[in-house]
C-alpha cells in the first residue's frame, strides 16, 4: 500500500457523560463484540495499510490496554506495525496534545521517517467500513491536495457537532464550516482524510510555527480554497459516536438486517481482540426476541430489542427491553430494565426496576457479586 494510517483517538466527548468516565470513546464497546477503534483499524488492515499510528491522549490507558497486542488486526509484522503515541515530555516539548494537528506535529518524526507517499487519517470513533484504496484512487484521479470523505445526512438532523461542507459540481470543496450553529448544507465531513505525506508535514510545520493546533479548523478550513480540496461521497453506513444518543442509536442499528450484513457477513471482516468466551447459553425460561447476544452470556429470561455485550448474566423472571447491557454485567432475578445503557462490570440487585424516561438512562451499579 502506498499509504500509512493515522487514527485520531485522543479526544474526549463530554456528551458521552458517565460512559466516557472510564474510557476514551474509541475504546467504547460497540455491537456486542467490538470496540469503536476496531472499525478504523480493520479498514486499515483490510486496505493493506501496514503502518498505522494511533494517537491517544484522553484516558489513553483504555486505548493502550486494548491495543496491548496488534496481532488481532494483523499488524504484528516485520514491515510496518501498529504504533500508539501518547503525550510525552521531550527536550523541546512539554505540552499535552493541544489539538489534532499538534498531536501529529509532536510525532512528526513518525511521518518524516516513513517512505509511503500518502497518509490516510481517520477518526477513531466512527463506525464504517471502507476500502481506503478507493479514496486514494479518487484522490489521485482528481489531482487533489486533500480529499475529505463526506457523508450526506438526512434532512432535519442536528449537524451542529459536525464539519459541514459544500461542494461544486466537480466535487471541489469551497465551503467548510466546523460545527456551525446554522448549517447551510447537509453534507458533512466523515472524519477521514487523504493527503500526500510531504504535504501533511509541510502543513503541520507551518501550523505549528503560527501557534495553531487543530487539523480541521486550522488546516482544512483555512486551506479550503488555497488548495485543491475534494470531497468523496460515502454511500455506505457511517456513524459517529459522540453522544449518548448516537451511541445508543448506533448499537440499535445493528438489529437491522442490512447493517448486520454489511459489517458481519460481507467480506472483508471487522476484527477485534479475542476474548475466548464460551458460546452463549439459553436456559429454560429464556425468551429472546430481536436482540443481539454475544458469547459468554447466560440468559434465563425475557430480552427484547436489546444488545447484550460479552459475558452478561440475566437472572430469572427479568425483563430487558430496548436496552444495551455492556460487558460483564450480572443482572439479578426479577429485574426490569427498559431504555437503559447498563455500564460494564456492573452488578444489578434482584427485584429492581431501571427505566429510562424521556430518553436513555445510564445505569452504573457496583454491588458485591456473590455467584459465578
Amino acid at each position, binding site marked *: 500500500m502506498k499509504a500509512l494510517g493515522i487514527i485520531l483517538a485522543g479526544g474526549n466527548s463530554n456528551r458521552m457523560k458517565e460512559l466516557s468516565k472510564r474510557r476514551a470513546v474509541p475504546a467504547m464497546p460497540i*455491537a*456486542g*463484540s*467490538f470496540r469503536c477503534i476496531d472499525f478504523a483499524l480493520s479498514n486499515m488492515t483490510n486496505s493493506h495499510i501496514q503502518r498505522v499510528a494511533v494517537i491517544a491522549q484522553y484516558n489513553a490507558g483504555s486505548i493502550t490496554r486494548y491495543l496491548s497486542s496488534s*496481532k488481532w488486526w494483523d499488524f504484528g509484522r516485520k514491515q510496518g506495525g501498529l504504533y500508539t503515541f501518547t503525550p510525552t515530555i521531550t527536550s523541546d516539548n512539554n505540552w499535552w496534545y493541544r489539538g489534532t494537528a499538534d498531536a501529529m506535529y509532536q510525532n512528526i518524526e513518525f511521518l518524516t521517517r516513513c517512505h509511503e507517499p500518502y497518509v490516510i487519517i481517520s477518526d477513531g470513533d466512527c463506525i464504517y467500513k471502507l476500502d481506503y484504496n478507493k479514496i486514494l484512487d479518487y484522490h489521485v484521479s482528481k489531482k487533489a491536495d486533500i480529499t475529505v470523505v463526506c457523508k450526506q445526512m438526512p434532512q432535519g438532523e442536528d449537524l451542529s457537532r459536525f464539519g459541514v461542507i459544500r461542494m461544486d459540481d466537480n466535487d471541489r470543496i469551497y465551503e467548510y464550516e466546523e460545527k456551525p450553529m446554522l448549517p447551510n448544507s447537509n453534507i458533512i465531513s466523515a472524519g477521514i482524510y487523504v493527503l500526500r505525506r510531504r504535504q501533511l508535514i509541510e502543513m503541520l510545520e507551518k501550523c505549528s510555527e503560527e501557534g495553531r493546533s487543530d487539523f480541521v479548523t486550522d488546516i482544512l478550513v483555512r486551506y479550503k480554497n488555497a488548495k485543491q480540496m475534494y470531497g468523496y461521497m460515502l454511500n455506505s453506513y457511517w456513524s459517529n459516536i459522540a453522544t449518548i444518543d448516537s451511541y445508543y442509536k448506533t448499537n440499535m442499528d*445493528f*438489529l437491522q438486517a442490512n447493517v*448486520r450484513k454489511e*459489517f*458481519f457477513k460481507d467480506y472483508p*471482516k471487522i*476484527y*477485534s481482540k*479475542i476474548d*475466548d468466551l*464460551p*458460546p*452463549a*447459553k*439459553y*436456559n*429454560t*425460561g*429464556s*425468551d*429472546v*426476541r*430481536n*436482540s*443481539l*447476544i*454475544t*458469547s*459468554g452470556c*447466560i440468559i434465563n429470561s425475557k430480552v427484547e430489542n436489546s*444488545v*447484550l455485550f460479552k459475558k452478561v448474566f440475566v437472572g430469572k423472571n427479568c425483563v430487558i427491553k430496548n436496552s444495551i447491557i455492556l460487558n460483564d454485567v450480572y443482572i439479578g432475578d426479577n429485574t426490569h430494565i427498559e431504555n437503559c445503557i447498563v455500564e460494564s462490570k456492573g452488578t444489578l440487585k434482584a427485584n429492581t426496576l431501571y427505566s429510562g424516561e424521556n430518553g436513555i438512562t445510564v445505569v452504573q451499579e457496583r454491588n458485591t457479586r456473590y455467584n*459465578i
Partner: protein
Amino acid sequence: MLPKIIYTAKILCYTFNTKDPILTRGEDMIKKEMIAMLLAGGQGSRLGVLTSGVAKPAVAFGGKYRIIDFPLSNCINSGIDTVGVLTQYQPLLLNKHIGIGIPWDLDRNNGGVTVLPPYEKSDDSQWYTGTANAIYQNLRYMESYNPDYVLILSGDHIYKMDYEVMLEFHKENHADITLATMPVPLEEASRFGVVIADQDKKVLEFEEKPEHPGSNLASMGIYIFSWNILKEALLSMKSQHNCDFGKHIIPYCHNKNDRIFAFEYDGYWKDVGTLGSYWEANMELIDLIPEFNLYEEYWKIYTKSDIIEPQYLSSEAVVERSIVGEGTDIYGEVYNSVIGPGVYIGKNTIIRDSIIMRDTYIGDNVSINKAIIADNCKIGDDAVLGDGDEKPSRLNEKVYEFGLVTLGEDSVIPKGVKIGKNTAISGNTDMSDYDNNVLESGGYIIKAGEKL
C-alpha cells in the same frame, strides 16, 4: 613476542580440547522440563461420516470448539509450552486449525506447537503404525528439547486437567512412568487398559482391554514418562509391529520392573468415540449447571475464533435450553441443542435435541429431530430430519444407532425430503437420491468420502 605465542597456544588448546565448556553445548542448550506429544492422527471410525473428511481431533464440539482444543488448552494452562502434534489421517482441517498455535499462545520463539506428520526416511519409511511407533518416529523432535519428562496425550478426549499436578505426583513417587487413571463402572472397564495398584498407587498389574477386569481403575491414555525410560523403551521395542503404548510399551516397562504409578483423576473426562457418546457429551453442556462447565474463569478453553460477531435472534425466534455460537442468525425455534458459529436457521424451522456445526445453512419450515449435522451443510426448505420409527442401520449397525441422523461435512439436503432415524448422509444429494422424497430409517446416502 613471547606472550603472543603463549596466547596462540592457548587458543589451539581450546580448539582441540573438546571437553572445554566453550565447545560443548552444556548449559546453554535448550531445556524444557516437560514437553507434550499429542496423538492426533486417529480416524475415529465410529464417528461415521463425521470423520470421513476430517480427523477426529478436528471434529467440532460444544458450539465453537474442536475436540483438540481441550488437550491443547490443558497444556498451556498447565504451563507446558512445547507440544508436538502428531497427525496422519485427514490432517488438512487440523493443520489449518492449529496453524502456528496463536489461539493457545503456543506461538513461541522457543518451543511452541509443531505439527509432526509421518515423513520419508532414507530407509524404512513408514506411516505411524501405532501410538508408540508414532512417538518413536519423532525421537529427534523430543531430543532437541532435552526434556526431563514427556507427556503423552491423545487428541480425542473432553476434559480439563492440570498436568502439573500429575507431574508433581510423578516426581514425589520417583516414578518412571505415571498413568492417569479414573474409576469407571466395572462392566465398562473391559474397553480400557485396566490398572491394579497398591495403597501407594504403585501399579502391580496392567492389562489392556481385559475380558475379566480385576479392577475398575481405567487408564485414560495419558502418560508421563521420564525421558530416559521412554527413549530406552521406544528403542528396544522399535521393531515391534504396530507398537502401542497400552499393548506393548507399558507391559514391557512393567516386566522390567520400572516404577509405574497410577495417578487418580476424579474430574469430568469423556471419550467421545461413538456418535452416541459424542451426542450425549454435547447435550450435557446444556444442563443448568453442567458437570463440564465451560463458563469457569480459571481454566479457559481456547480455540481459533474467526467468527466473532454477536448472534442475532429475530422477533419470531425461540431458543431454550441451548448453547449457540458466534455470528449465528436464528429466525426459527431451537430447543435442547448445540448450535455452532455462523449458522443460519430459517423461519418456522424447529430444531430439537440436535448438534449443528459451524456455517451450516438451514432453510425455512424445516424440522430437525435428534441430528448431528457437520460443518458447512445446506438443508433445503420443508425438509424433515429424524422422522418415523427407529430401524437398525443398513450401513453399519454399530456406528449409526441411538436414533440419530448424521450428516457429514458439506452435505446438501434438497427441499422437502423426509429422512428417517439411524441414517447417514454425506455429500451433495439431490432429489434423484431419494425414493419418493424419502430416506427410510436405517438408510444411507454416501456420495463423498468413504463408507464408514
